């Protein structure tokens, strides 16, 4: 064992050199790395170690698309479709269309009419994913009941809608967040109905949550007249200053027809407002309604709350208008962003939030560093005190072990979290275990009367099986933790797992080489341990 090929030594040295090069960028300022990356070919891995949000500060928001609200809007659309179909087919219904949790129900007294209605309504059920996608099932179950027809949304149809809603939400959120000018925010889908937002560096999540939490559904409706039938009127709260106002249920124009919105200032009062522009269709509709209702107030409704209800002074036919509402500058500009980005297709609920301010993040980095330095120093001193020159070898291997963990994390793009630092500190204590196993074995063999070289040889050989066995169990625990853990805990699993791999390499291979070199150089008669 005390002979090894020069190429092995060379490759170990090359590995160490490569590891040093790989982690160098992590100690350089980000701009310097970018500048360097621009000049080097792209295959050279120039990566900095990614710090988790718990260390660099930032917000982690996990949001869920509300399936109930998606279903509800689908059911409402279905009710309108059914009404239209029956009207077109001139089928009389007894009473209204009853809205149920997952569908609608129409009563039709006459059996012949009922059969006709069933036929007609069957056509509302479409193949999921469009006419070309076969085998996914259909959107509706249409069934005849004792006194009518019931239409129920299928599970597959709702799942499909939720999937679409998630995809659309991500697009809308991307537009909103890009408009806010925050960099490096990650928005991605998680599972079938969830959206994950990771925003590094945002100090106050209130602004972020305001930006993503609003559906931003804009509607223009007429304020109700005493003459309106009561079932076509509803009372909505004012967004500011309390109070409420009665408005018509019918929406004149909605936010879907907006093509642009910008923060601007009111020409008379100088207050911040939002200038918007409709597309052709929206402009025409808006022009028509405003010219028919000059002198009446109309309400600008955002997510069910009335922003303001100005009186229509003259027909607005240019396709543009202003929204005023005692906005602050910030409010006006975020409203403009929201309107530009479009409405979310469904309500998103925050189901998990983890926010770390940059102050705490820095404190955690400092604490982690201190613990790592002190822990490593204690272990290093203890190893030298116990094993002398062999302890120095183990400590050198330990240094390379730490170097390799960081290098492999940088290469893999793994995220360093606070539990991850804890994992590294733990492996510092654990990494020398392989050395301890070997050294203790060498001592035992020497006590049995073996020569120095034979004791060294037997020590390495016999300890090896034990080292593998004991590390496999630890590695399996780390692997499982990675698979089942989430968030920062995964960081622990990563550093523990990588640490076990690198420690086996360094403690076995490197120490063996160092001891071999030492032996050939000093030719000792007795073991120093």
């Amino acid at each position: 064992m005390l002979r090894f090929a020069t190429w092995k030594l060379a490759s170990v040295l090359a590995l160490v050199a490569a590891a040093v090069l790989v982690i160098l960028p992590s100690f350089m300022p980000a701009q310097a790395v970018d500048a360097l990356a621009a000049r080097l070919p792209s295959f050279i891995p120039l990566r900095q170690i990614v710090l988790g949000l718990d260390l660099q500060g930032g917000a982690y928001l996990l949001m869920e698309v509300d399936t109930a609200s998606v279903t509800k809007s689908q059911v409402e659309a279905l009710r309108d479709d059914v009404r239209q179909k029956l009207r077109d087919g001139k089928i009389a219904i007894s009473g209204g269309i009853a809205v149920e949790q997952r569908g609608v129900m129409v009563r039709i007294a006459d059996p012949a009419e009922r059969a006709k209605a069933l036929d007609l309504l069957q056509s509302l059920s479409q193949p999921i994913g469009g006419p070309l996608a076969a085998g996914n099932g259909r959107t509706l179950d249409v069934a005849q009941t004792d006194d009518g027809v019931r239409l129920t949304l299928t599970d597959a149809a709702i799942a499909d809608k939720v999937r679409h809603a998630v995809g659309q939400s991500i697009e809308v959120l991307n537009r909103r967040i890009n408009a806010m000018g925050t960099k490096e925010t990650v928005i991605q889908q998680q599972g079938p109905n969830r959206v994950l937002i990771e925003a590094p560096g945002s100090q106050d999540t209130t602004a972020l949550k305001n930006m993503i939490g609003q559906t931003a559904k804009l509607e223009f409706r007429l304020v109700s007249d005493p003459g309106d039938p009561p079932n076509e009127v509803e009372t909505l709260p004012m967004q500011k200053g309390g109070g409420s106002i009665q408005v018509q249920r019918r929406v004149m124009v909605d936010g879907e027809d907006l093509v642009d919105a910008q923060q601007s200032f009111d020409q008379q009062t100088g207050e911040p407002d939002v200038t918007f522009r409709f597309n052709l269709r929206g402009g025409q509709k808006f022009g028509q309604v405003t010219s028919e209702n000059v002198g009446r107030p109309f309400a600008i409704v955002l997510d069910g709350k009335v922003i303001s209800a100005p009186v229509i002074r003259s027909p607005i036919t240019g396709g543009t208008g202003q929204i005023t509402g005692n906005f602050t500058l910030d409010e006006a500009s975020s409203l403009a962003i929201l309107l530009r980005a479009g409405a979310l297709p469904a309500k998103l609920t925050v189901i998990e939030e983890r926010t770390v301010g940059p102050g705490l993040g820095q404190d955690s980095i400092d604490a982690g560093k201190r613990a790592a330095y002190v822990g490593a120093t204690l272990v290093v001193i203890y190893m030298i005190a116990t094993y002398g020159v062999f302890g120095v070898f183990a400590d050198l291997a330990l240094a390379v072990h730490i170097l390799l963990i960081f290098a492999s994390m940088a290469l893999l793009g793994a995220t360093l979290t606070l539990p991850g630092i804890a994992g590294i500190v733990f492996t510092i204590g654990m990494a020398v275990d392989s050395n301890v196993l070997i050294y203790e074995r060498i001592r035992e063999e020497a006590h049995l009367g073996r020569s120095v070289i034979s004791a060294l040889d037997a020590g390495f050989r016999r300890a090896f099986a034990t080292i593998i066995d004991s590390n496999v169990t630890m590695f399996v625990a780390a692997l499982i933790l990675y698979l089942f853990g989430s968030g920062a805990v995964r960081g622990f699993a990563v550093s523990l797992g990588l640490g076990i791999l690198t420690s086996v390499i360094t403690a076995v291979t490197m120490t063996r080489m160092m001891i071999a070199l030492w032996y050939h150089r000093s030719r000792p008669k007795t073991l120093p341990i």
Partner: protein
Amino acid sequence: MKLLRLAPENTKFGFMRFRRVSYPLSAALSIVSVVLFLFVGMNFGIDFAGGTQVDMRAKSGEANIADIRGKAESLGVGPVEVQRIGAESDALLRLGVQPGGDAGQQTAIAKLRDAFGADYEFRSVDSVGPTISAELVQRGTLGVVVAIIAVLTYLWFRFEWQFAVGAIIGTMHDLLLTVGFFCVTQLEFNQTSIAAILTIVGYSLNETVVVLDRIREVMRKYKRLSTAEIIDMSVNAVLPRTIMTATTVFLALLALFFLGGHVIRSFSAAMIWGIFVATYSSIFICSPMLIYMGVRAETFDRMREKEAAGADVKAKEKA
């Protein structure tokens, strides 16, 4: 240079004699742990219990704990827990799960920001809704179970079954006592605690494997000795290593406990406990199991004969 030796050399302790003490003691402690878990319970953090936790720092002067509690309780957000952490200016505020499902948590955070935003910096906000906390409980439990099964499968392949049984009992013992530790100390049990538990399982098996490896080796060499003598001999032989490694890991964890900050203190405390328990159980629980299961040197011979015979049969079948 005089080298430091924590473990005396060439010890001949009669470890196996202690099994008459260690078994009843461990059995009692395990039962106490289960009873504590059932009737006292662990202090589940928001990861598993759901709720909201805010780490806040006074913008000037000290954090006034009583004042924070009073103010927070008046917000109508249910029971409020406030405690000082680390520096004088820092406080940790915790709310239970709010009514109104996942959306309810966000309303509570908004209320807290309104009430304390002016005087306190919110250093971190963690909020876990009921959906996620239920999932985390599920995944945490599943993770621990799968980890144990996976590691034991490995042992089963690598060692004779009696050894694997010893390891299982030792691991369960460490697991129960760690649960007991969380019940007694009422340290917050959160996701990092699951990480601690799995690492303890890993460490415990690591210890066990080292001892069992040696027992197997010695058993093959000294067929005349009784099982207890063989085990004593093996445990004494690996004792310096056991103490050495436990000490290096302990030193690293000690640094983590005192310097690593409050976020991972409960993790480090559990790990330190785990190191002691795992070291104890590998010597006093796992190894004596072999005596109880009647493992002898001949067991190996018989097994090897059987294996050889099996191989012969297969070879014949092929031919």
